[in-house]
Each structure stands twice: as structure tokens, then as C-alpha cells.
């Protein structure tokens, strides 16, 4: 999950294979659906996790999203790609969950991987730009997640999909069923908000 693969269009053979898997899964072949789950489990989990900042919630919601996708597979007309359709289900499920939960956020953060301390950008950010030079990565992680949770769900979703997962504006528009202009404006507004919340970590020394 260190380098999230953008969900750009897969090549033709992979797309054909995916189409075949979708057809078989629609007929009720669980082995084919198992293969589809394996393809997208990390991205779907990551999207939900970054939205909720809670591993347990992300686990439940990701499983429910995949189960719901299987239930609704017969209504999948192929108007969009399977992954866009799957993302839409996961996104809607997550936003509905967060609305029900309102502001009762409970952080259950995943550990940072080994590569974090060797990421030059992050190391530079902490050692040079942070006024609190003793601030550790864990503290920064907590602050970042808290700041994300202060955003509204649609704004947070755009930031997570674009800035964290590398999804393009066009694909986000398709996933969130809105136009590209809305995606851009939400992204700009969300970044501004985050800048305000994280000012002490972003200002130059």
C-alpha cells in the first residue's frame, strides 16, 4: 500500500480478463468473484480506511461493499468499468456510514510501514519545516488524520481519492457521480481547509 496503484485503465488483455471474470461472477461463480475481490481489496480497503481513520470500520465496510457488489452484480450493465462501479458502491456505503455516525470519530490507526522513515519528503518535512522539531511521525500521523476528519465527507473523499490514492479527476467524477468542475472545486476547498488545520506543520521555518 506504500505506492498506491492509480486506477487508470487497465490494458486490453487485463480488461478482457476482467470482463470474463465479471461474466462468470454474474453467473454465480464464486471463484471468479474471489479473483475480483483479490484484485481490488487493497484499494477499496485503503479508500475506506483513509475516510474513516479506523481499521475495524474499514474492515467491516470493505467486506460489506464487496458483498453488496456481488448482490448487485446482476444490475451491473457495463456502462462503466467494473472498478469504477465497485468504487461507487464502496464510496456510497462509506459516506452513508459516516453520516449515520455523525461526528463520533474514534481513531484506530494502522501502523506506519518501515519505508516511512526513509521517505525523504517526509523526513524533510519533519526535520526542517516543523517548528516542533521533536515531533515524531506518529504525532504527525494523528494530527493529519484528525484534520482529515474535520472535512465534510465529499471533500474528504476527493482528497483521499486524488492526493492519497492518485485517482484522476475524471475517474473521481465518475465514481462520485458529479462533474469534473465539482471535483476540482471540492479538492481546492479541501486543501485550503487542511492547510489551515495543519498550518503549524506546513509553515516554513
Amino acid at each position, binding site marked *: 500500500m506504500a505506492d498506491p496503484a492509480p486506477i487508470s485503465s487497465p490494458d486490453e488483455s487485463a480488461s478482457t480478463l476482467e470482463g470474463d471474470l465479471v461474466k462468470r461472477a454474474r453467473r454465480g461463480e464464486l471463484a471468479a468473484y*474471489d479473483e475480483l475481490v483479490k484484485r481490488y481489496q487493497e484499494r477499496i480497503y485503503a479508500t475506506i480506511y483513509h475516510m474513516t481513520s479506523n481499521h475495524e470500520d474499514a474492515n467491516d465496510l470493505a467486506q460489506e461493499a464487496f458483498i453488496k457488489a456481488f448482490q448487485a452484480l446482476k444490475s451491473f450493465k457495463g456502462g462503466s468499468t467494473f472498478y469504477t462501479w465497485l468504487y461507487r458502491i464502496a464510496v456510497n456505503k462509506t459516506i452513508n456510514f459516516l453520516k449515520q455516525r455523525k461526528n463520533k470519530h474514534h481513531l484506530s490507526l*494502522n501502523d506506519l510501514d518501515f519505508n*516511512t522513515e526513509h521517505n525523504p519528503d517526509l523526513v524533510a518535512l519533519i526535520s526542517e519545516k516543523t517548528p516542533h522539531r521533536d515531533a515524531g511521525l506518529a504525532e504527525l500521523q494523528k494530527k493529519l488524520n484528525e484534520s482529515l476528519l474535520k472535512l465534510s465527507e465529499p471533500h474528504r473523499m476527493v482528497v483521499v481519492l486524488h*492526493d492519497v490514492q492518485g485517482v484522476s479527476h475524471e475517474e473521481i467524477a465518475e465514481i462520485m457521480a458529479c462533474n469534473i468542475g465539482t471535483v476540482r472545486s471540492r479538492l481546492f476547498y479541501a486543501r485550503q481547509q487542511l*492547510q489551515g488545520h495543519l498550518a503549524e506543520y506546513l509553515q516554513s521555518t
Partner: protein
Amino acid sequence: MNKNEDNFETLKQLLKLKQHEVPPPGYFNNFSDQIVSRIRAGEGGGAQSLTERLESVAPWLVHFLQVFETKPGLIGAVATSLCLLLTLGVVVGERSDSASKTILPTAEFASAGTASASITGPPLVVAADSTGIVASTNPATSLQPVSTLFGLPNASLFQSASFVPASR
């Protein structure tokens, strides 16, 4: 704007930290198995919620409702226009009501000398008795006093009460 973009670059670097947050080791090893076993256990054909069914049948309606969620101001606008429509309906209803009341006496004058039953027309009038009351299915014209050929309208409706002792 350039300064903003520059600041956004720093923010984007900071957001990269999120990419390093990983679930416990081996988490994805059994993830798909859990889903498949839940589907096998019967959840795959489970009942869908109303929203989920609506989403598969009429996604446009779900998107329409989602617009309300993202733009709460629209709810107020729609509610206000609904209230205005309702008020307009009530006002128009009352006007037509009073108009039917004013039309009725005019019709009475126009048809003076004819039978009272013919004033309001056959479909509305059920019966006219000697008291001058027209029973009608139309609530506006029902129990309206009508003129009679013999003196004051509804004269027999009110009779002065008098008591004469039996000894006289």
C-alpha cells in the same frame, strides 16, 4: 495562487504519509475468503435495504436526493415553494367557494317563478321540500335557503314558541 500551489505541494507531501499506513501483516491473506464464505452463508442473496433497491432501480432518484444532502439550501427552497403552492391552493379554493356562493342568488333571481328544484339544476339537487331547503350533494349549495313562491323564504323554518294555558 502560486503561493497557494506551493503550499499545496507541501501539503501533498504531508498527505503522502497516509500511503504508509498499512493494515496488520497478513490482513489481506484471508480477506477474500471471508467475503466468499459470508456470501456462501447466505448474505449474497440477502435482502437489500430500501435505498439499495432504489439505487439499482432508479439511480437518478438517489442522485437527486443526494443533491439535497450536498446542498442543504435547496431543501429550504423546495420547502418554501411547496408551502407557497399550498397557500395558493387554499386561496384559490376559498375564492372559488365564495364565487359559487355569489352565483347562487343570481341564479335564483334569474329563475324566479319556476320551481325551486330547477334553480340549482338536476345534478346537484336531490330534493326540495316545503321548508325551502334544498338538499344537495354539493356542500356549498347544500342547506342553502331558497326563495319560495309563497312569501318569505324559509318562513316555516322558525316558528315563534307560544304557550297558552289550557284553562283559557
